[in-house]
């Protein structure tokens, strides 16, 4: 049974928040609009994690079915809508990566398979989104290699700090420090973007 719109916690002010509220009320068109806005980014994330476009599409479908069923659980005070969707997608992708033993592919394999899909013209056509994409890519590129590597292994591969230490042959404390430094730098560098989302 769908939750009512009133059960959504917090006051919905952003356009995405309104869409989540409508989705919680059983409005399929609102879910479709959320899909149109975020599916390109979420599928890119799932492919990055899984390295397999078919599995990534499955995850994308599961994410939006879950959003349809659990939109009422969204809390604006905890995250923006886009971050909520990103965290669900990341969690689902990592779960699938581990539980289904999805064969990890090399970056070149994933890139080759990505040719079956199309880069979203809507996304790139949106100046704001494109600027944000370039900004994020630049901030990540500006991180020292070891910090970026630690962060990406944790974020995209779901590895714990201990697993990263074992995989890279680096002391655990060093790995933690690199990860923390990377996150702090990004938080400071992305202060403006974060402010927009709060």
């Amino acid at each position, binding site marked *: 049974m769908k939750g009512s719109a009133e059960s959504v916690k917090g006051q919905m002010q952003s356009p995405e928040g309104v869409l989540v509220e409508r989705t919680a009320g059983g409005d*399929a068109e609102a*879910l*479709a609009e959320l*899909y149109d806005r975020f*599916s*390109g*980014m979420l*599928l*890119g*994330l799932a492919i990055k994690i899984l390295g397999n476009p078919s599995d*990534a*599409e*499955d995850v*994308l*479908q*599961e994410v939006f*079915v879950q959003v*349809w*069923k*659990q939109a009422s659980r969204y809390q604006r*005070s*905890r*995250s*923006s809508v886009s*971050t909520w969707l*990103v*965290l669900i*997608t*990341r*969690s*689902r992708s*990592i*779960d699938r990566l581990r539980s289904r033993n999805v064969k990890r592919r090399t970056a070149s394999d994933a890139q080759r398979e*990505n040719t079956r*899909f*199309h*880069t*979203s*013209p*809507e*996304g*790139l056509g949106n100046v704001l*989104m494109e600027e*944000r*994409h370039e900004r*994020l*890519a630049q901030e*990540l590129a500006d991180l020292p290699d070891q910090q970026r590597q630690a962060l990406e292994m*944790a*974020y995209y591969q779901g590895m714990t700090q201990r697993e990263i230490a074992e995989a890279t042959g680096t002391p655990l404390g060093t790995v*933690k420090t690199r*990860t*923390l430094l990377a*996150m702090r730098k*990004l*938080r400071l560098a*992305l202060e403006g973007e*974060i402010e927009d*989302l*709060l």
Partner: protein
Amino acid sequence: MSEHQRQENGREERLILDLLDGRGDEPAALAAPVAPAAPAADAEVESGLLREYVEVLGLLPRALAEVRPRAEVKERILEAIGRGENTVHRPTGSPATTPRAGWSKWLLPLAASIAVATLAVTGWLVIQVQDQRVRIAELSEELGNTRSLTAELAMSQGMLAEVRSRLAMVTAEGAEFCALRPPAGSPASGARGVVVMQAARNEWFLRIEGLEPCPQGRKYSVWFATEDGAVAGPIFAVKAGEAIELTVSGRPDKINAIMITLESEPAPSAPSMEPLLFGDERMQLL
């Protein structure tokens, strides 16, 4: 670094690592109450810090290139939520051949219509094939009858031609007849025969009936008695109740008599026995 700063750094580290290591739909740091043992002011700071790091995690995928899903992904999601399903089934097979949702409601009726039409056409074709088979059988029978009639006609024509030939021989000017009869003491007492000779065409015709079937290894032989001795004519076999008719070209000159004997094979150069049938009286009809 003061103790307070060290505590803040420790909380920040814990927040970040909990966020990154978090499992489930929400990171552990999001699901847990914010620093329950901390003073109110610290809790507020930590809550704000947590939110900022959460948004950092939410922003990271924006560094990736967006990938537009195939159209059917959205359609399958909308179909699934319309059916109230918890999971979305990905159709098997090539994505290019996956039917669109709008078509799916037509697929079953369309398939049923095609099946009914196919059955109807198949039934009609079966009936047509059966009719054709019956017609082919009828035509085959007619063809067989026609062939039989044609053979009979050809045979009749052959017989008619032979009769005409013999009639022409019999009715020709100068035709001679010679009756063949069994001499006294001949074992072929029931046999009779006639020879028609046509001098101008150098042909002659022999008809005999009443001869016994030939024993194994022996055949009847025709002999012409001339002033120079007996000249061998054709040999022939006889089956039970069968009359013999022979039309032969060529014969010796100055024939005095005609004889029939039963000879062993190969035929000897002269009769080896007394004649079974004999004729020496030649006469002309006209």
